[in-house]
């Protein structure tokens, strides 16, 4: 009897220990250095907070097992060549079970070639350009609302305020910005706006003087465009320094970062199309509420979350939900669960297209517009101004 009890005890110890030993390896690169470092680091913090929260709760529970989450992560230096090498390494050497995307559409496009080749699931965040999801990929799932929505929403807001505005598009010559601006320009013309100037600039541009002179000469009253943090913040600084008489400025990505406030007066009035804002009031069916996420994030990083951070955390939540639904980490079963995902988290609705020609494209999530405004105390804050139903403040138009 004693012997049987001892064997039973040892066996149970083995299974418990086996349960603890279950881990899921998630691979991704972070642009810790290079031009994408600001946005990429914020995305990483979202991943990290989700991992810590899940592990503190005992891991992901699926099929009667608990899976602790561990990361295999490297610095891609904002460089697509590094992305190609590192995603191969994470799959072959680090044996990553699932992957998250790097930050930006162009780096993700590179990573997706590798992950698809090895038939690995990759949830993409910080990668809004649609083209990558229309190449027949079967293991790619987009968390961000597609790029076409970014500036068309800004144009809707402008139409409501000033249908006679003259519009200039000044944007980074990179895949994401081009994917945003091309449909936005057509949409502006469709709405009856006079598009008086369009120019793309090289991604490493630091001197915008010549372009700014052309914007002034065009007599544009509204400027739409930008690209990422480094160029967007420089463009905004120089627009302010040259006192360009614009009534509205809407730039991609950069103004969403809490660092934007460091621009001081140059930051005021700038609008950013956003995937998520802390004021968003989605009723979460799964995971924490927006308020709880914001509180936990601010406590850990001493800064408010950006939409890149929220996208990072939500990617983890959606993968966690799919693993739970699949009852394990088998790639085909998790892919099936992702295909049928239609959930609302603090980040909003998430649903992936299962149409063969655009498999994995995000069809549930929508863009909001936020604007940097000064509050009564003169402090710079970001306010949601569109859609009107969810606004936290009115659009300030004209800026000055």
């Amino acid at each position, binding site marked *: 009897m004693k012997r049987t009890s001892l064997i039973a005890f040892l066996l149970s110890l083995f299974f418990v220990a086996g349960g603890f030993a279950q881990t899921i390896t998630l691979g991704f690169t972070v642009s810790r*250095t290079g*031009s994408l*470092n600001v946005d990429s680091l914020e995305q990483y913090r979202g991943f990290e907070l989700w991992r810590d929260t899940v592990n503190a709760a005992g891991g992901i529970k699926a099929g009667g097992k608990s899976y602790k989450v561990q990361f295999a992560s490297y610095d891609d230096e904002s460089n697509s060549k590094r992305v190609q090498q590192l995603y191969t390494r994470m799959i072959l050497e680090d044996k990553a079970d699932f992957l998250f995307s790097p930050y930006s559409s162009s780096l993700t496009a590179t990573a997706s070639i590798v992950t698809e080749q090895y038939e690995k699931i990759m949830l993409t965040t910080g990668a809004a350009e649609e083209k990558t999801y229309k190449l027949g990929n079967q293991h790619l799932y987009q968390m961000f609302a597609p790029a076409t929505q970014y500036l068309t929403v800004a144009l809707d807001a402008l139409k409501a305020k000033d249908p006679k505005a003259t519009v200039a598009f000044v944007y980074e*010559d990179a895949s994401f910005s081009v994917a945003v601006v091309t449909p936005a320009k057509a949409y502006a013309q469709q709405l009856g706006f006079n598009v008086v100037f369009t120019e793309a600039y090289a991604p490493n541009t630091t*001197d915008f*003087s*010549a372009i700014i*002179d*052309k914007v002034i000469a065009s007599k544009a009253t509204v400027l739409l465009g930008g690209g990422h943090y480094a160029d967007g913040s420089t463009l905004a600084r120089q627009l302010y*320094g040259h006192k360009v008489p614009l009534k509205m400025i809407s730039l991609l990505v950069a103004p969403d970062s809490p660092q934007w406030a460091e621009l001081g007066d140059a930051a005021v009035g700038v609008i950013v199309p956003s995937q998520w804002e802390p004021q968003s009031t989605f009723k979460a069916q799964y995971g924490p509420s927006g308020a709880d996420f914001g509180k936990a994030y601010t406590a850990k990083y001493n800064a408010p979350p950006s939409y890149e951070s929220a996208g990072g955390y939500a990617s983890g939540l959606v993968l966690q939900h799919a693993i739970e639904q699949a009852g394990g980490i088998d790639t085909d079963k998790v892919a099936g669960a992702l295909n049928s995902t239609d959930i609302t988290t603090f980040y909003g609705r998430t649903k992936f297209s299962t149409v063969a020609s655009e498999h994995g494209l995000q069809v549930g999530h929508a863009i909001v517009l936020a604007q940097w405004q000064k509050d009564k105390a003169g402090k710079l804050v970001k306010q949601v101004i569109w859609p009107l139903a969810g606004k936290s403040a009115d659009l300030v138009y004209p800026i000055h």
Partner: protein
Amino acid sequence: MSGILASMIDGLLIGSVYGLAAMGLSLIWGVMDVINLTHGAMIALGMFGMYLLFGASAANPYLLLIPVIAAGLVLGMIVYWLSVSWVIDRPQLMSLLSTFAVNMMVIGIGTAIWSTSPYNVNFSLPGITVGAYTFTGNHIAAAISAVVIALLLELFLYRTRAGKAIRAVADNRDAAELMGISSTQVLMVAFAIGIALAAASGALVSTLFPFTILSGASYQLKSFVVTVLAGLGKPFGALVAGVLLGLLEGAVSPFIAVSWIPLIEFGLFVVVLILFPRGIFGRATA
């Protein structure tokens, strides 16, 4: 004010900084027959020198040019002894490789310390507004600083004994040595001044635009164009050529996309090499 005129004024202001950057390259090339491939890295170090000094002291950046130039002189002497003095009389390829090696070391160490993320010197002077166009105070101050430094260099080269010694060594090193001039010391001083000028131009650029440790490379390329345009060993000519290059940028940018400008600049580089192999200001060597 018309857009073209405003664009040309902007070009003139930034062109003077291109000119200052090219002066250092031109001086070293003209006096020593060394193509200094550390030039871009030294411009970047000037940017970070200004960033660190401004962050530590919050003093006026144009006053901080003085310690940046002093540090550039010391660094120039060190780089000269480490990498150039050994190869000065050997084929030009040796000095090319030697300075390239130093360039790679500086970029590597700089990347390890500062990464390749962008930095800013958060300082702004009030600008001048004419009609719808505003010329920022930082651009105006940078252009004035560049011209003042260029004039001081010109005074040094033409009005001081040390400057005359540099020109003598540049003209004929053997004859200068026969006249009792220590060419070794003169070459070291010329190299140090070239590096200090590169650092000063980098410091000025840092007050205008964000920068990384890799930012010097684009100014090094522009310096080559300006040096070829001016002719070797003509530092003040380099300033004028830099201003001309800036004016050209300003004049063409209203008509073409800004991303096409490098094509025009390097087209000009080739045309000048073919039509004016000694540069538009004179002879091949000083």
